[in-house]
Each structure stands twice: as structure tokens, then as C-alpha cells.
């Protein structure tokens, strides 16, 4: 683990039909961190992740990952560089079995020639990912029968077995029970300990308090505050945003 920034975002701007979803954002994430990204609805958190992974095209600014510029790269190339993500609404391949879903994810670096061969057995990496998320028992089932929570787990298994350097989790615990949240948090912590940098978008402050090392607060497409959970909670601006004090059009608290 080094101290060099793994992800360095400078002056990022994403505009949808004149609306600045991300407005001149600067963000630095170091290798091995578990960084939480919080902020009210519409703060641009998901848009930021979309921009990093190539789903939306920024209007300006730069996103450097391990020294490489990500802006303008195609989605699958960004994944190839080592950036993995999950989605708010989990999408799994319903016609494939749980095992095949993970195996497809794990095989993405195989040269095309090897893809033309059949899968023989289960690789260690796939088995481990399935065990990590507790889906090993269901591996032969078509993914279409899984519940919402199980699909979230399956998505996590799929991205885990790809061994990304940077893992972006978009609201991974939405709709989960307390126990499941606990497990997800522990999993994220363990992944980070094994060398993957994790960025988690989350609303649930309780969850954030328990598992975050550093928290970044976004508001209206820009960075509002950054620091440890305690520091951020002390921050007056953050409290304003979360407690909904009267604000002007730009979102700054109106001084009474």
C-alpha cells in the first residue's frame, strides 16, 4: 500500500441539458482507503460514479486512475484497467445460473481463444466469491429466481471475483436488514484490507459511522466537506444541508 493517490479527480463537470449534475468537483482517493461518499438526493454521487466508469461523458475536467486518464475511454476498457462497480438496481443475467453469472464475470480477462472453450468445474476464485457472499448453495439456480437482496450479493460476488483495484459500490445496503448491512460492511472492510480501494455511496449514516475511515460529503455536484466521520459531523455546512436549513438558490445556508 502506497500513499500515492489511486484516483485523482480534478475540476470534473457533468452537465445534463444545462443542469450541472457535477460542478467542478475535486476528489482524491488513496490506495487502500474505504471512502464513503454521502450527500442528499441529487447531490451527484451516482453521476460521479457513472463518470468514473464511463457511463456518462464529462463536459470537462479529468479523472486519473493510477496515472491513466479515464475520461473518453470506453466502459469495458475502464473495467480492464481495474475499476469495478455495482449498480443501485442490481442487474444479473437471469437466464444464466448463479455460478455462470460469476464465472462470466471472472473470465473477462481471458483471451478470446480461451473463451471458446467450455467451463470445466469451478475455479477457486469463483468458488471463493460465491462463498464470500453466501450464495454457494444456490449456485446451480438460475439467477432469475433470486430475491432482490440475493441479487445484490450476486453483483458483489461478480465484481469481487474480478479483483478490481478500485471498487465502486452504489448504495450496496439499500433494502438490506441490519444483519446483512453488518456483513456487507465487514466484507467491504476485508476487501480493503486485501488491497482493493473501496468507494461506497451510502445514505445510511449509521452504516457510515460504523465502517467509514474517511467520508466525502457532496452537495449540488460539488465537494462540501471531507474528513473522518466525526469531523464531518461537526461541520456546520454539512449539518445545514442535512437538517434542511433555509438556503438560497445555490444551496449555501442563508445567514440569519
Amino acid at each position, binding site marked *: 500500500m502506497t500513499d500515492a493517490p489511486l484516483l485523482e479527480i480534478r475540476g470534473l463537470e457533468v452537465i445534463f441539458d444545462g443542469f450541472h449534475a457535477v460542478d467542478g468537483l475535486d476528489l482524491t482517493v488513496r490506495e487502500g482507503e474505504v471512502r464513503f461518499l454521502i450527500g442528499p438526493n441529487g447531490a451527484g454521487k451516482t453521476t460521479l460514479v457513472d463518470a468514473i*466508469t464511463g457511463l456518462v461523458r464529462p463536459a470537462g475536467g479529468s479523472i486519473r486512475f493510477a496515472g491513466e486518464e479515464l475520461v473518453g475511454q470506453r466502459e*469495458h476498457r475502464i*473495467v480492464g484497467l481495474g475499476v469495478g462497480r455495482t449498480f443501485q438496481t442490481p442487474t444479473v*443475467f437471469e437466464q444464466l445460473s448463479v455460478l*455462470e453469472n460469476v464465472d462470466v464475470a471472472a473470465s473477462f480477462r481471458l483471451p478470446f481463444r480461451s473463451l471458446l472453450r467450455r*467451463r470445466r468445474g469451478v475455479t477457486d476464485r469463483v468458488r471463493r466469491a460465491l462463498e464470500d457472499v*453466501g450464495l454457494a448453495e444456490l449456485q446451480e439456480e438460475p439467477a432469475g429466481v433470486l430475491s432482490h437482496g440475493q441479487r445484490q450479493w450476486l453483483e458483489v460476488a461478480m465484481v469481487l471475483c474480478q479483483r478490481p483495484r478500485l471498487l465502486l459500490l452504489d448504495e450496496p445496503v439499500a433494502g438490506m436488514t441490519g*444483519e446483512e448491512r453488518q456483513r456487507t460492511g465487514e466484507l467491504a472492510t476485508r476487501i480493503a484490507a486485501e488491497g482493493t480501494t473501496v468507494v461506497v455511496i451510502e445514505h445510511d449514516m449509521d452504516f457510515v459511522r460504523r465502517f467509514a475511515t474517511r467520508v466525502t460529503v457532496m452537495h449540488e455536484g460539488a465537494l462540501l466537506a471531507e474528513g473522518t466521520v466525526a469531523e464531518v459531523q461537526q461541520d456546520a455546512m454539512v449539518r445545514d444541508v442535512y437538517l434542511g436549513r433555509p438556503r438560497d438558490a445555490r444551496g449555501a445556508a442563508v445567514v440569519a
Partner: protein
Amino acid sequence: MSRLAGTLAAGDARWGFLIRFLVVAAAMLLLAPAVLSDFRLSLLAKFLCFAIVAVGIGLAWGQGGMLVLGQGLFFGLGGYSMGMYMKLEEAGPGQLPDFMVWSGVESLPAVWAPFRHAWFALPMAVLLPMAVAAVLGTLVFRQRVRGAYFAILSQGLAAAFVIVLVGQQGLTGGTNGLTNFTQLFGLDLTAQANASILYTMVALGLLAVFLIARQLVASRYGRVLVAVRDSEDRVRFLGYDPTRIKVVAYTAAAGMAGLAGAMFVPIVGIISPALLGILPSIEMVIWVALGGRAVLAWAAGGAVLVNWVKTGLSERFPSGWLYLFGMVFVVVIAFAPKGMAGIGEYVRAGLGRPGAVRLGPRARDRATARDRAAQEPA
């Protein structure tokens, strides 16, 4: 006996597949030539050509979700490659094909020249459609054109191809196409007895194409292809380029259609625009829909059965067969949306587990495991 039935019924058992494959191969290669008249055999050979196209459609559409409504284009490229070679072989060295003489063409067009050689023309019948599909597919899929837009585009290409063929009378034989073939590699095509040689070639071609397609489907690539069909965007975020995945299946399907077109020409004795326009192209997809697009063997079987039924009906009811044929189509689509494969699956479920069609012991175990996992979150 029941064990054999069980083995035959198990879809994923390798031995089961081998037995079924060998039974069908034996029936095609040994039984059919023994019991069918030369006329029927050559009819079946034509249907097997269609079955080769159908295997390709099963791959591209059934597995890859690309509704290929213009396979006539590739069928035609293969057919015309073969037809050009046969016309030149017949005309003899330095001579022009008959229709060019009638159209007043004086020297052999440059496009035709290399097709004088079998070593060029025969590989071209497969490689040319593949090359066209690879270029086209890359351009189209890269722009994320899919669904109905892709279907209409592919259909438009078949239509455009027909317009070009009809317009270039001197180069392509126009509406009449290429016909009046009498020989291939010195084989007299007018002799009925030679029908079985051509039939055997087509049957072997179909078996080979089927094995290639099946390997593609069963491989990891096949799983990714299904994943692309289900959610192309998700596959992109797993690090695959969906364009590449789709182009491979589309190109393979085009090669198969080209091969079928090339074999069709010596058997039927003609290749013309009427055989590869919009309507024939749609018909090709209908065979596969009726057979069952998700299962390759049924896609191929659908092509043979539909054409067999069509011929049977048209012979028995010369005036009303088209209505009957339409009714068969409506009934299958209404009651068996998965095509005949769906009916096969249902029967198989009954065969494999007598008296337990609803929920077999294995399915029950799985259901329990599912409940358990749902209760104690993993």
C-alpha cells in the same frame, strides 16, 4: 430401457447428447437415402440447406438476441459465389456464361474473373458473407443499434441486395438469376442418381455446422453471448466489449447462411433474387421461431419440418394450403411460444420424472435450499 430413456432425457448429459446426435446422423446419412425416392431425397437436401441457415439464426437470434431478418443477403452471397463458379465451369475456358451473351456483354467482368477457380469461389461462398457481416456488424453494433432497429436495418440490406442484383442484368442475370446448371466438378446434375451424393454432402455440412454452433453455445463465449442478450450494458461493465461478442455470432451465422446458399445452388439448380429478398428472409426466421429459437437442434428441425409440412400441404391442397400453413403458424405461436422445442421440453419433463411433472425431488431440494438461504441471510 428406462435408464436409456433417462439418459436420453437428461439435456446436459454428454453421453445423452452423443447418442441423440449419432441417432440423428445415422437417420440422415443411412436411413433417409435408403427409404426416400431420389426426388424426395433432393427435396430433403434443399431443406437441410435451410436447416444450416436456421442453425445460424438460432445462434445469432436465439442465443445472441439479434433478430436477423436479412439472412437472405448472406445466403445469396454464398449462392451467387457458387453460381458464378458453376456458370464459368460450364461455359468453358475463355467463354462467357450464356446469359451474358444474351445481354450483349462482350468480355468477362472483372468481378467474375477470379470465380473461375474453385479454390477461390468455394471459400468465398463462406468467407465473403462472413467478411460483410463482420464489417457491417462492427459498424452497427458499435453504434449500439439493436432490437427492432437492427432487425429493420438487416432487412433493408437484403432488400438493397435484391435491387442491386435485379438492376445489373448483364452482371448477375437480373431477375432470372443464375440457372441452367448441368454439372459440378464433372458431376452430372441432371442425373437423378447423383441426388444422393449432393444430399450426403449437405447432410455432412449440416452436422458439422451444428457441432460448431453447439460448441460456441456451450463454451464460455456462449454464456457471455446469452448475457449480452439479457443485458448488453451490464456486460460492458464486466469488462467485455459487447460489439465483439455480437459480431462473432453474427459473422458465424452469416458464414452458415453462405455455406447453405452455396450448397443450395447445385441441388435446386438456381439462385435468383426471389430466393433471398425480404419475404424469404422473414420465412427463415419463422422456421426458427416455430422450431424453437433457444435450442439449436430445434431451430434446424424447425426448418426441415416447416418446409416438409409446407410441401405436403401444397401437394394435397393446391388451392388452400397457404391458409392451412398460416393456421399452423398461428396455432404454434399461440400455444407454444417457445416453438416445438417448448413442447419437447414439456414431454421430456414428463418422461424423465414419471408422475412428478410439477416439482421433482431435485427441484424440491433446491426450493428448500432457497428458502433456507432466504431465512438466514448469508
